[in-house]
């Protein structure tokens, strides 16, 4: 078995090496992210069977868990790190030819480091280390949103950075309160002691942590940065931001709420927040004319649904949430990647300019349609399986509160269906705008077709055979819910 720490160390080393490689050859750096993510994918998948048996606890510096930082590669962590590596790999392949302007070598470095940050977030077992990797993820995404230095990118980057910096400040206050209260930073150690302290201070520190992580997770009042950042970034980065980065924030919230604090009393509040986020995201998406902004708002909506499912606190509910994380990650990455070349081809991000593109870019449009249908939740795509799991979980709880919320939430899904169908209808049944100039640079290279096609195939395959992922979902949910087992694995006795 390979040590899970290599999932972080090897890509990090490759990223550090890029400046030197870039001096030697101009072409080499663009292949480095592909190598790094391929390595991560292979290692993550090979770790999966081990992690299913029992979480792998990796110590650093040779000291037992409470006294040093450790990684916990449980089923959830390894599943998410596989997802990160998979999407990261496909987007890296896409990026080989997609990135044409700006500091290309620096883009590749930041790209790897962003994924390293996300991997670190899902694997670490130490709350301050979680913060550090969270910052690695966030700071590289600020830089990537603005890396072209164009006016919208810079503006979006500045907004994102201001809100993100406040968020991480709040997280740090929360961590300070936790350390002052428990004298430890190991999540398992905190979880073991959490009942021994007066509850108000716990509530305050939890509120700080949730608010801080909620900025990155784009939960309702804190999502002002997301549409700008996701729409102004290059499409490959939007794919990662929507597919992975915001999920890392949500993972952090779930980990803190469930494993560390075991705080079941705030869950209904989170469920309401989730549904509000869902409705607001979908309603804003409905009115958008810009395709990337539409996709960004749709991400907010989906995050709301995931948060709602996480707040159900039942094994099925969390399985559904994790499943939705997977399916939304794949679908949203596909949509952003496909729209990237459509925008190159038409030279515009207006939805109306994409009319009739089904004839000009048949493969891209088909893949986009697959992604959109999956996102709406149409069978036989993976989105259906995940949303169905969530509905089943809500019905399983039998509580009127959750069922009412779900009913409200379904309105959001209907809206989602409406606008995606409108776009798809435009692709195939509307004539192309007369004056649209035929951009020659929009020729889709092979390196872009492969990841987009693969994502579409994956969405279809997992949708037809949900068992591929389904085997991991149950243990992943337990990983989050079963605090005593988590503490036992980490602390040893």
């Amino acid at each position, binding site marked *: 078995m390979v*040590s899970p*720490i290599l999932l972080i*160390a090897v890509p*990090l*080393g490759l*990223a*550090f*090496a*890029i*400046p*030197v490689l*870039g*001096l030697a050859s101009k072409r080499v750096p663009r292949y480095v992210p592909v190598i790094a993510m391929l390595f991560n994918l292979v290692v993550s998948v090979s770790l999966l069977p081990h992690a299913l048996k029992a979480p792998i606890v*990796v*110590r*650093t*510096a*040779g000291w037992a868990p*409470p*006294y*040093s*930082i450790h990684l916990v590669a449980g089923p959830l962590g390894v599943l998410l790190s596989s997802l990160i590596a998979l999407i990261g790999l496909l987007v890296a392949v896409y990026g080989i030819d997609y990135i044409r302007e*700006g*500091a290309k070598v*620096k883009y590749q*470095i*930041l790209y790897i*480091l962003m994924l*390293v*940050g996300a991997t*670190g977030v899902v694997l670490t077992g130490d709350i*301050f*280390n979680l913060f*550090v*990797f969270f*910052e*690695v993820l966030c*700071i*590289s995404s*600020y*830089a*990537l949103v*603005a*890396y*072209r*230095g164009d006016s919208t990118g*810079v503006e979006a*980057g500045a907004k994102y950075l201001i809100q993100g910096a406040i968020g991480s400040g709040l997280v740090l206050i929360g961590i300070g*309160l936790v350390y*002052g*209260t428990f*004298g*430890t*930073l190991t999540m398992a150690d905190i979880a073991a002691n959490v009942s021994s*302290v*007066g509850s*108000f*201070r716990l509530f*305050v520190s939890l*509120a700080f942590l949730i608010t801080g992580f909620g900025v990155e997770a784009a939960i309702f009042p804190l999502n002002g940065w997301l549409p700008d950042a996701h729409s102004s970034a290059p499409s490959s980065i939007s794919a990662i931001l929507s597919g992975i980065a915001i999920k890392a924030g949500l993972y952090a919230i779930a980990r803190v709420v469930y494993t560390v604090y075991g705080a079941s009393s705030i869950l209904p509040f989170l469920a309401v927040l989730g549904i509000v986020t869902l409705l607001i995201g979908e309603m804003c998406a409905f009115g958008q004319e810009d395709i990337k902004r539409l996709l960004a708002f749709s991400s907010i909506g989906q995050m709301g649904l995931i948060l709602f499912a996480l707040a159900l606190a039942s094994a099925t509910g969390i399985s559904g949430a994790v499943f939705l994380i997977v399916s939304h990650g794949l679908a949203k990455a596909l949509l952003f990647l496909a729209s990237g070349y459509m925008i190159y081809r038409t030279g515009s991000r207006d939805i109306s300019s994409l009319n009739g593109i089904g004839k000009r870019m048949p493969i891209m449009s088909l893949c986009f349609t697959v992604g959109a249908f999956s996102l709406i939740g149409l069978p036989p795509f993976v989105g259906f399986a995940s949303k169905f799991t969530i509905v089943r979980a809500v019905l399983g709880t039998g509580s009127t509160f959750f069922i009412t919320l779900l009913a409200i939430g379904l309105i959001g899904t209907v809206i989602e269906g409406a606008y995606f169908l409108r776009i798809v209808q435009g692709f195939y049944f509307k004539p192309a705008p007369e004056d649209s100039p035929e951009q020659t640079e929009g020729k889709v290279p092979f390196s872009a077709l492969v990841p987009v096609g693969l994502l579409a195939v994956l969405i279809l395959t997992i949708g037809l055979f949900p068992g591929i992922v389904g085997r991991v979902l149950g243990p992943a949910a337990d990983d989050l819910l079963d605090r005593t087992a988590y503490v036992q694995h980490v602390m040893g006795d």
Partner: protein
Amino acid sequence: MRRLISLLLLLIVALGIFLCFSGASFGAEGASRAGKLTEDKVNFGRRYASRGLEENKAGNIVASVVVNYRGFDTLGEVTVLFIAAVGLAAILHARREEATPSKAEPASLIVFTGCRFLFPLILLLGAYIFIHGHLTPGGGFQGGAVVASGFLLIYLGCRGRGLRSAGVAVAESLSGLAFLAVALVGLAVGGSFLLNFLPKGSAFALFSGGVIPLIYVAIGFKVGSELGGIIDNLSGEAR
């Protein structure tokens, strides 16, 4: 209006924090824990203070914590700084291409000569700080910052004599890789990332603390070259 809402929000936060402190004991000084300060189980910071010297043979316990016990954080921290340097260069990349070379006013002879005289000595001070990081206050980050201040001095005093960016990139890469390599050797030798695998020597000597000074030197180089690169990029001169 905006002002009012913000004040209200802050008031709520302040109230929450106030209530949070008015409860039970808090922090290292917390009354209920004061009697148990020496117990390891209670607070792992205490354990480091009481056992760190014996375990790592490094006089500076903070250095032990930063490089050994919580060395993984430090790796992330170095990465964050690396991201900032790279991201800053990427964002200002277009600006550099647009900018026309401006004629820098040469500094006065006093400043110019003084810079030339002091620059190597500032680098020496930086090197002293990061080499002695495990014995005295300071360490890789502080030493690196001092080194970068030397580059800032050169930028201020000897205009138009910036860093050679290729050299900075190589120093940045190699020092980062050296940190990782030391950590990975620990994994290969003892099965644990960042393991302090070298003989630890006797405390308070220069050669003590195992890998701690090695890593601190690598961090010093990395931080120095990164901050130097940031200064170089922010100076905004077209090359």
